[in-house]
């Protein structure tokens, strides 16, 4: 399908309350034509509710949803013409694989010969050619996932919704399917909204990520921007590991507990700021004095060998514990050993000061 056939989605002021619990709070969201957008958030954040509203299964209290030019907020689910992959796949157990995939085609009055051909094409696309006659219970979890995908795209919907489609698979298969789904999206180019609570999955697959919490979108941006420049503490803590240390900014520069630091950019506001530290951006230095790098003295509290890396926890001069992910080939430091941690100026990021308390 051509990319220009995909439809953009525009969500405005979408709100839903269950009693006093506000599940979605006036959400605005734009999904570009052909974009892969992930709704990422903890359970209960409202991400699934938002997806279900796009599919038409949950009725919002108010708001607007447009697919392209068309307002669909009051449109029944079976008239929305969006593909959807359910968390538990929802493959019909009383039909074989081919009948499952043919189901949407049959409902659209497509002839037998064309149906047969398109079913086989869809099966080829998900690399399960020749599986048409299998029963659903004969399939493995990964195969069911592919069939559910084939069924969702066989009628060439212009929007594809996915509700944690990989959460039931084991880790290896999940990582494999992430790449495969991403490649498939690049081939088909349909506007895709993907729900997950797995931040790594979101980072791997998405063009953009919308981080949702308590019914609000806390940040929407590319994976790189979300990871490296989180808009607030929630996003920073939800995505990747992070530690925050309090630093002071004055006219001269920035300092942590009396130790001067060089920042990537000087903030305009003076006073105390939160400096975000990612474990993999810290290095364990051989010598205290290294040019062009910020040095933080610390005491090792734990050092754990993890195969691909060594996780070191160390307390800084103010007692704050930070995590450091060091190369596995490096020497594993001893507990209570005095070490020096290096942080490049380019890797420093001060959290924006939030205007209102979250």
């Amino acid at each position: 399908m051509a990319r220009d056939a995909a439809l953009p989605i525009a969500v405005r002021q979408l709100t839903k309350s269950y009693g006093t619990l506000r599940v979605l709070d006036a959400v605005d969201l734009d999904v570009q034509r052909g974009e892969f957008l992930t709704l990422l958030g903890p359970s209960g954040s409202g991400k699934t509710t938002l997806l279900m509203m796009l599919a038409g299964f949950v009725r919002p209290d108010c708001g607007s949803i447009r697919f392209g030019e068309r307002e669909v907020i009051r449109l029944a689910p079976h008239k929305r013409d969006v593909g959807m992959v359910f968390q538990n796949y929802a493959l019909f157990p009383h039909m074989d694989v081919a009948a499952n995939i043919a189901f949407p085609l049959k409902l659209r009055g497509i002839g037998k010969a064309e149906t047969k051909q398109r079913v086989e094409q869809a099966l080829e696309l998900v690399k399960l050619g020749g599986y048409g006659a299998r029963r659903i219970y004969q399939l493995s979890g990964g195969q069911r996932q592919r069939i559910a995908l084939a069924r969702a795209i066989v009628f060439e919907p212009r929007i594809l919704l996915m509700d944690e489609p990989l959460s039931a698979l084991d880790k290896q298969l999940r990582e494999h399917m992430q790449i495969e789904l991403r490649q498939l999206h690049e081939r088909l180019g349909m506007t895709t909204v993907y729900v997950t609570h797995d931040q790594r999955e979101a980072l791997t697959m998405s063009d953009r990520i919308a981080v949702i919490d308590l019914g609000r979108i806390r940040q929407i941006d590319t994976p790189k921007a979300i990871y490296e420049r989180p808009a607030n503490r929630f996003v920073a803590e939800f995505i990747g590991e992070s530690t925050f240390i309090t630093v002071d900014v004055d006219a001269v520069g920035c300092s942590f507990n009396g130790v001067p630091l060089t920042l990537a950019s000087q903030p305009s506001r003076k006073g105390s700021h939160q400096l975000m530290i990612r474990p993999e951006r810290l290095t364990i230095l051989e010598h205290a004095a290294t040019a062009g790098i910020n040095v933080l003295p610390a005491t090792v509290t734990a050092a754990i060998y993890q195969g691909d890396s060594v996780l070191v926890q160390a307390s800084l001069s103010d007692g704050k514990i930070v995590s450091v992910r060091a190369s596995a080939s490096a020497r594993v430091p001893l507990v209570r050993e005095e070490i020096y941690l290096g942080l490049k100026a380019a890797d420093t990021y001060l959290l924006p000061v939030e205007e209102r308390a979250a």
Partner: protein
Amino acid sequence: MSHEAGLNAKGLRRDALAERLILFSLSGPAVLLVTMTMLVPVGWLFWLSFLDDAGGFSLEHYQRMLVQPSYGRAFRITFEISFITTAICILLGYPLAYALSQLPRRVANICMIAVMLPFWTSLLVRTYAWLVLLQRQGLINTWGIKLGLWDSPLALVHNLNGTLIGMIHIMLPFMVLPVYATMRSIDRDYLKAAANLGASPTLAFWLVFLPLSLPGLVAGALMVFILCLGFYVTPAVLGGGKITMVANRIATDIELFFNWGAASSLGVVLFILTGIILYAASRLVRLDRFLSGGGA
């Protein structure tokens, strides 16, 4: 070293055997009871059906069934009544079970108690209660005429109508229970998926919900049908002597003619016919397909 002679092998084998013995002994009393009250008498009746009055082997009881039209009539009316009762129970019970399955579980549980309520009184009491309601001067005819719905008393009892009304009432819970249980177990995501793929609610019902609820429907229909085949009290009381089902015929043979052989042969034929129906139904609807594919 072979594993039979391995470390502790003997003791472990003995433990396994002991566990199996305990399990078997738990089912012992029930097995004994069924043998005493079921297998022995049935076997004895089976034996009796092949004996003539003098005690010699004969097929006269079975031959009589073929020759005398009253026996054929009894079988025909039995199957007719069972079939109609089952059909109406499906028509009444399926929508009821569906409505219940869509309610919140707590509310549905309360409603299920209401469905089960008739079981709290004996079948005989309920049957006589219908007699009170349905007779010429009964509650329904009195009110129907008072309200001007009909002019002269309707013949609601002492005939096929009364028998059917009573049997449907008694059988309905046996239909609702398995259908409801099956419908409850149908994941709602199947219906969402059907809608998402373009099926209107009506089409989603016919293409997805009905086929998935079929195992429960078949189980309920079989249960109702087979229980109907052996009905005695309701046709006897509400049929007014005009409805002779096989069970009533058996009673007559024993009480009136004291012909145990004839009664036994009826029982044997009904037993075999029921077996054939069960077998045919199980072949017709491959229940295992649905059941093993039910999980996500």
